């Protein structure tokens, strides 16, 4: 799924360093293992972590396998909030009736991540905790105004998506912490969501993306791929009104690229990414607007 972490151009690959492994039966046990052992890391689906460990780009000393923690895999609606367990696989999100009814964009986007094998193992929690700038869910969850619940030996805390993503592969989940669930407001009338971008081949890695969400004329727009963390396009959000069309959206987005400092790599120059970012925002916004009207 993602191997952009710290130089996959390393020499030598494919086999993990020695590591210790535990598969706790309860969340409490998982949390104490994570806090007791220095260099312990949660192992969710492993689609990124195992591959990163193969490259030896990261080598935790202890892997705490969350596979037995069924309470982290549930998807439910509680009032007007969709609660997705951190260990819910992308496949389960795609097939979930609750997601379909409450916030279908999550299933739509999940269905474009990599491939079936990865989706069968990959989890929503893993996707957000990694915080690879090209990942699908960080910008989407910021646009949806999600809230992350983190458990530690000190108890539980909630972190809004806007504050969850902190830096290069860094989130509010620190050593000893465990992300347990992601809460997303259920979409009501007047809410529309959109996500657009350019990938390297069908269902490939994003080169640029943007997620947009509108509720009764109030916009949230987040960009991925242009910085270490999702970037809220606040100026664009303010310029967008309740009624949007192609021309007004383009006017609102004009100049966005110049405010960004995106990386350049083999797939895109900084200028190209700026341009793609603007186009992605326009398309995500138009998609969200169209859906809000349904």
């Amino acid at each position, binding site marked *: *799924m993602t*191997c952009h972490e710290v130089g*996959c151009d390393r020499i030598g*690959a*494919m*086999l*993990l*360093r*020695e*590591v*210790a*492994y*535990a*598969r*706790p*039966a309860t969340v409490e*046990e998982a949390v*104490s*293992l994570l806090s*007791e*052992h220095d260099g*312990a890391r949660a*192992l969710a689906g*492993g*689609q990124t972590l*195992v*591959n990163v460990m*193969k*490259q030896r780009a990261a080598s935790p000393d*202890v*892997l*705490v*396998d969350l*596979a037995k923690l069924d309470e982290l895999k549930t998807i439910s609606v509680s009032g007007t909030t969709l609660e997705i367990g951190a260990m819910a696989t992308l*496949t389960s999100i795609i097939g979930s009736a609750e997601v379909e009814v409450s916030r279908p964009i999550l299933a739509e986007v999940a269905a474009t991540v*990599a*491939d*079936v*094998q*990865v989706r*069968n*193992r990959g989890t929503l929690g893993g996707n957000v905790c990694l915080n690879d700038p090209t990942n699908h869910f960080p910008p989407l969850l910021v646009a949806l105004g999600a809230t992350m619940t983190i458990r530690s030996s000190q108890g539980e805390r909630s972190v809004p998506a806007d504050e969850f993503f902190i830096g290069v592969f860094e989130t509010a989940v620190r050593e000893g912490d465990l992300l347990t669930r992601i809460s997303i407001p259920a979409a009501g009338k007047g809410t529309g969501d959109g996500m657009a971008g350019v990938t390297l081949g*069908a*269902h490939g890695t994003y080169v640029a993306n943007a997620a947009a969400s509108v509720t009764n004329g109030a916009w949230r727009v987040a960009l991925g791929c242009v910085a270490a963390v999702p970037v809220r396009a606040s100026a664009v959000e303010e310029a967008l009104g309740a009624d949007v069309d192609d021309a007004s959206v383009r006017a609102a987005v004009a100049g966005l690229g110049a405010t960004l400092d995106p990386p350049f790599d083999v797939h895109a120059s900084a200028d190209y990414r700026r341009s793609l970012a603007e186009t992605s925002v326009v398309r995500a916004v138009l998609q969200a607007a169209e859906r809000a009207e349904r």
Partner: protein
Amino acid sequence: MSTTPITSQVVTVTVNGERIEKDVPARRLLVHFLRDDLDLTGTHVGCDTGSCGACTVHLDGVPVKSCAVLAVQADGATITTVEGLAGDELTPLQRSFHEHHALQCGYCTPGMLMSASALLAENPSPSEEEVKVALQGNICRCTGYWNIVDAVVAVGKGGAA
């Protein structure tokens, strides 16, 4: 009573219907466990980033890339590899691959068969698009995929409307 992390353990797995117990280091990948420890060499390694799907097996009934799973994670699980598909006869899927020239060098074929058989188990008459989505995680460099997709669609007798 807290679990103590271990650097190796005995894993118990059911592979192709057979119950197996083996001591493995925690760091061993499932694909190497299958190939090197169990001599099931039908599952192949084609890359080192979890990208190619040549290592695809069924883990508790769903297709996964066995290079992105540790053997210890499979403790207690049921695994099917390509060797476990055919009985005395080739399956209709294997025969369809043969009839449609859906393999040339055969290296991606086990992975393709595992992904396709998983699809057919839950969707017996997939459309061309559904087949492509199901095989999106399996790279082939010989066939260009067209014959492979045809072979899978043919098993489902032409797919849903």
